[in-house]
């Protein structure tokens, strides 16, 4: 039996290696035919394109590597802001769905049902072309100045593209987080609600201090995968012209023809992003579980 298993594994390995070899051979033939070859020397060459938005100084004479770094930072910016806002919206909507107020819970239910059945890309286009580009050209509002040129928030200048991607990702991910939060809250025994009510705690305080902490262990793992989804979905920013990592990679590849290398770099950047998110969530998870165990 063991010997047979060994033979099967050997067979599978050979088949996989043969497939890989065939693909690499085809690739090599095609690369020689197009005269490109493989290499990363082009990263140091000047990019030659401008970026509409950059956290650090960038000019077209800077290198492709620097352009990709700026794109990565732009992605990080919208992802981090999106994570925070989507969590706030999701927790609020999830709590609203399990609240006693009929109207409030059905409003939250309608939000979830509507948002989850419509493609995210369509929603992003809506936020960009209808909601933000539909704003008047002259700034309106006091503390928050709104116009179709950009949003000014307490001295912070945000581009319309950034806002559209941020709002789109927040509203879309918030709906999924609401479902997770509702599931987590429903998993907390009803006795806990009755207990804090009989102690005279207000509804909101009881939810924050008694119910949500107990719901967290059930919520966190699912929340992590939603965060990873948000990070991946942020690449749709290219549809509204926000210069995120994917958009910069796309331009770079179109200009240089370096599809394989570009793909490898994109893959590495996303592995790094995923590690950041899942590592942070794992630390948070163990901190929450530790606190919960100590308080018992």
């Amino acid at each position, binding site marked *: 039996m063991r010997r047979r298993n060994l033979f099967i*594994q050997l067979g*599978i390995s050979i088949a*996989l290696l043969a497939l890989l070899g065939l693909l690499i051979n*085809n690739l090599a033939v095609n690369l020689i035919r197009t005269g490109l070859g493989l290499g990363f020397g082009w990263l140091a060459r000047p990019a030659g394109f401008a970026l509409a938005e950059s956290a650090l100084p960038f000019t077209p004479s800077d290198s492709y590597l620097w352009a990709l770094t700026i794109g990565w930072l732009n992605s990080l910016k919208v992802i981090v802001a999106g994570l925070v806002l989507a969590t706030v919206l999701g927790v609020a909507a999830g709590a609203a769905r399990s609240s006693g107020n009929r*109207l409030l819970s059905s409003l939250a239910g309608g939000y979830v049902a509507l948002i989850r059945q*419509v493609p*995210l890309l369509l929603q992003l286009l809506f936020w960009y072309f209808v909601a933000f580009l539909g704003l008047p050209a002259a700034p309106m509002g006091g503390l928050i100045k709104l116009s179709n040129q950009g949003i000014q928030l307490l001295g912070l200048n945000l581009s319309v593209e950034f806002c559209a991607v941020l709002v789109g990702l927040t509203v879309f991910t918030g709906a999924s987080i609401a479902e997770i939060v509702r599931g987590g809250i429903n998993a907390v025994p009803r006795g806990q609600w009755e207990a804090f009510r009989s102690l005279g705690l207000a509804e909101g305080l009881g939810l924050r201090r008694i119910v949500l902490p107990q719901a967290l262990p059930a919520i966190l793992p699912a929340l992590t995968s939603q965060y990873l989804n948000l990070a991946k979905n942020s690449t749709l920013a290219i549809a509204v012209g926000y210069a995120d990592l994917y958009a910069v990679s796309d331009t770079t590849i179109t200009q240089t023809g370096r599809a394989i290398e570009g793909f490898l770099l994109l893959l590495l950047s996303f592995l790094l992003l*995923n590690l950041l998110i899942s590592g942070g969530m794992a630390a948070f998870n163990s901190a929450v579980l530790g606190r919960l165990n100590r308080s018992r």
Partner: protein
Amino acid sequence: MNRWLDRSITLLILALIGWAGWSLLHWLLVGADWSVVTTNLPLYAVGSFPADQRWRPLLWMAVLITLTLLTLVGPKRGWVRRWLPLAWIAMAPLGLWLLAGGLGLLPVGTRSWGGLTLTLLLTGGSGALALPLGILLALGRRSDLPVLRWSSAGYIELMRAVPLIAVLFFGQLLIPLFLPPGLEINRVLRAVVAFALFAAAYIAEDVRGGLQAIPPTQREAAAVLGLSPVQTLQLVVLPQALRIALPSLTNQAVGLLQNTSLMAILGLVELLGISRSLLANPAFIGRYLEVYLWLAAVYWLACTAMALLARHLEFQLDPVRSSR
């Protein structure tokens, strides 16, 4: 105190809904111009399919809608019910034949495919490829053979780490690079393959969840009955695992349908792509809201129909119900 808070929240929401309803009504009566939708209905349905051949994709969609209605609200038993599963399976080859032509029909290149027809065909085609591949990957990940386990897990984790748009973009760019020179496959097929390769990784994880939920006693019982490992898998383990995984597989299917819209960025004229080219037409300049609302309604309907069909299937496969 609590009752007052409750009442004020209710009043606030009513005021908000009233305001939103009033603005929407005002826009519908005064601002909206639906000609961008009404004059282009054939484009949304079939794209730029040759006008004299339009009956082919339209016929396919009519059959699809009829089947959906028959399944959901048709007779509960009798010959119609018995033939339904077979009819559903026949939909994919029928669609391909009606769209591509051949066998007595005028051939139509994939360049002219578009609209809702293409959206549905992309969903169906990639789903049909992704499901078996996903099941194989899930079985591979739970195999006793380390090589198989590692390679399946590696593939699944890699695919789940990258964004779909990157997979699709590189599917269009890289698939030709990895094929022998001279062998070319067209854009639609490349998109279907890339979608299937991506979706299979997610399906694999859902199926793995179903496999993990099967108690080991089921395998032992099958072994005692003298079933071979393949028979055990085919007759005992997989049917139960797939039934358990069905709700999450449904979510994947709905997600797949929504994600076909990403092909609009890469230049296919499926439902969202055709709308983008319509909005670029000077005759319909600025009619974003009308088009997006219309598209949202179509996607919402298609996704809801799919979810209802899946719930129907779940109900049919429920052992408690079917044993009665």
